[in-house]
C-alpha cells in the first residue's frame, strides 16, 4: 500500500495546478486558444488522475455520481439560458451584444457565460464516461 508514496504525494501536489490550468484555458478561451471544451476535459482529467491513484471510491466521495449527472444538463441549461437573456433585451437568441454596456463588452461576457456552460457539461460528461467504464462488471 505504501509503495506508491511518491505517486500519491505528487498527485496531491499536482491536482490544484491541473484545476488552475483548466481555469486558465477556460478564461482565455474568448481571446486566445482554448475555451470551455478543452478546459472541461482538463478538469475531468484531474478527477480521472485522482481516481486512478486513490481508487474510484475516493474520487466519488469528492465528485459523486449524482453531482456528475447534474453537471451534464446544468451546463446545457446555462448555455441555453444565456441565449434567452438576449430575449429580455428584445434582441435575437444568443445575441450577446446587448449583454454589456457596449457590443464588445457584451460579446465578451456572453462568450464567457456560454463557455461556463460548456466547461460544466464537458467536465461532467467526461467524468461520467470514465465512471461508467470503471464500474463495468462491478
Amino acid at each position, binding site marked *: 500500500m505504501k509503495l506508491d508514496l511518491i505517486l500519491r504525494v505528487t498527485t496531491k501536489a499536482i491536482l490544484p495546478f491541473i484545476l488552475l490550468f483548466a481555469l486558465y484555458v477556460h478564461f482565455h478561451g474568448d481571446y486566445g486558444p482554448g475555451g470551455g471544451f478543452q478546459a472541461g476535459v482538463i478538469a475531468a482529467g484531474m478527477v480521472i488522475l485522482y481516481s486512478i491513484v486513490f481508487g474510484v471510491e475516493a474520487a466519488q466521495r469528492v465528485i459523486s455520481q449524482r453531482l456528475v*449527472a*447534474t453537471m*451534464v*444538463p*446544468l451546463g*446545457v*441549461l446555462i448555455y*441555453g*439560458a444565456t*441565449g*434567452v*437573456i*438576449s*430575449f*429580455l*433585451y*428584445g*434582441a*435575437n*437568441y*444568443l*445575441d*450577446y*451584444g*446587448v*449583454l*454589456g*454596456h*457596449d*457590443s464588445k463588452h*457584451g460579446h465578451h*461576457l456572453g462568450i464567457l457565460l456560454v463557455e461556463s456552460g460548456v466547461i460544466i457539461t464537458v467536465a461532467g460528461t467526461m467524468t461520467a464516461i470514465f465512471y461508467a467504464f470503471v464500474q463495468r462488471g462491478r
Partner: protein
Amino acid sequence: MSVGLLTSVALAAGAAQAAGGHAVAAKPFILTEHLPILIVVIPLLAAALTAMLRNGRVAWAISLAVSWILPILAVMLILQVEEKGIISYALGGWAPPVGIEYRVDIVNAFVLLIVSVVGAIAMPYALRTVELDIDEPQRAWFYAIYLLALTGLLGMTITGDAFNIFVFMEVSSLAMYVMIAMGRDRRALIAAYQYLIMGTIGATFYVIGVGFLYVVTGSLNMADIALRIGPAFAESSPPVMAALAFIVVGISLKLALFPLHVWLPNAYAFAPKFATVFLAATATKVAVYILLRFYFSIFGSAISLTDLPITEMLLILSIAAMFIASVMAIYEDNIERMLAFSSVAQIGYITLGIALANKSGVAGSVVHLMNHAAMKAALFAAIGAILYRVGTARMSELGGIGRTMPLTMAAFVIGGLSIIGVPGTAGFISKWYLGVGAIEHGWWVVAFLIVASSLISIIYIGRFVEVAYFQPVSEASEKGSDPPFSMMLSIVVFTALTIYLGLDTAWSGQLAEKVAAVLVGGLAQ
C-alpha cells in the same frame, strides 16, 4: 459595473433599463418575432431540465407540456408565413449568409407542423408504455432523450444553414440511437448499433457533400448556395455532381430508401413502444424534407436534373421499395417488423413523387409525409398496445386478438386500410396525387404499378386481420384487453386523424399543393 450588469441581466427588461448605462436601448420581448428559435429552444431547455430533475413522472409532465406547446408555435408560424412570406431569423444577431439563419417558408412550416403534432398526440401514450419499458432511474433520461430528438428534428427542419442541418441531424440521430437501445429486448442494442453505423455513414456522406458545395460556392447558407450554384456549375460541374451524389446517398440512408433500409426494421421492432411510434412517424419524414430541399430548392434551381440519371435511379429504387419491401412484409411473422417493411414501401411512394418532379407528384409526396405519419403512428400505437397487454407481436400467437382487444384492432384495421389506400382514408389521397402525377408525366406504367403495389399491401394487412378476427382466441390473446385510457387516447386520435385527412382534404391538400408549387418552382427567393 459587472455586478450591476449581472443583476440587471437577472431582472426583466424593464428593470434592465433602470440599471442605467445601457448603450443598447432595451426593447420589449415580442413572442411572435422569436417563434422560429422558440420552437427549437423550448424542447432543448426542457430536455436539460428533465435530466436535472430526474423524476419519471415530472419528466413526463414537462415533456407533455412542451409537446403540446410546440404545435401551437408551428401553427402560428404557418399563419405568419401565409401572411408575410418567408421568415428569416438571424441567430445571435449575425446577419445571413455569414451567420446561421433560421428560414421558414411554407415547406418547412408544414414539416414542423407534422413533427410537433405527432409529438403532441404521442405523448399521452408515453406515460404507461415508458413505465413498462424503462426502469425508473432511467425514465427521466428517456424523456430528456426524447426531447433532444424532437429538438434535433425541429432544428433540422427549420434551419436555413446546410451545416446547421448536419449538427441537428447528429443531435436527433444520437438521441434516436439511445432511444432505440433502451428497448427491453436485448436485440435492441444490436439494432441501435446497426442504425448507428448506417446513420453515421449517412451523416458523413451528407457533410462531405456539403463540403463540396462550400468549396464551389463559398457559402453554407442554403438560399445563398442556391443563388451561387448555377454559376459554379457552369464553371466546373464535377464537384457539384459529386456534392449531389454524396448528399442524395447520405440522406437516402437516413430516410431508409431501398436498398439502404436495412437498419430500419430491427430499429423499429425492438425500440421502446413509444420510441417506435414517435420515430416511425417523424424521423424519416424530416430526412425526406431535407432531400426535397436539396433536390428541388438547391440543385434543381441550377441544374436540369432531368439531364442526369438521378431521376431514373430514384424512380427505379422507389418502385423496387414499393414492391420488394411489401413482399418482405408478407413473409414477416413479427407484426412490428412487418409494419417497418411497410414503412420502407411507403417511403418508396414518397420518393416516387420526387422522381416524378411535377406538381401533382410532389404534392403527393408532401401530403404523404403527413398522411403516412398519421397512419403509421396509429398502426404502431395499436401494435404497441397489443405488446403492452399480451407481450408478443408474433402473428402466430395472436389468434383472435380482435375479440379481446376490439378497439385497438379497429384502429389497426383503419390504419391498415389507409396503408392499402382505400378511399375515405388518408392513404387514398396520397396515392391519388401520385397517380395523377404519374399520368401527367405520361408514365402510365408507373400509375399502374402504384395500384399494383397497393394490392400487395392488402395481403400483409389482410393476413393479420384474418388472424385477429377469424381464428379462435389463442392462449396469449386471452390476456388481452383494450389498453389504459392514456394509451387509447393517442391511438384514437391518430386513427381519427387518418380518417379526417382522408375525408377533408380542403386544407391538407391545398397546403401540400402550395408546398409543391414552392418546391417545383425552385427556391422561393
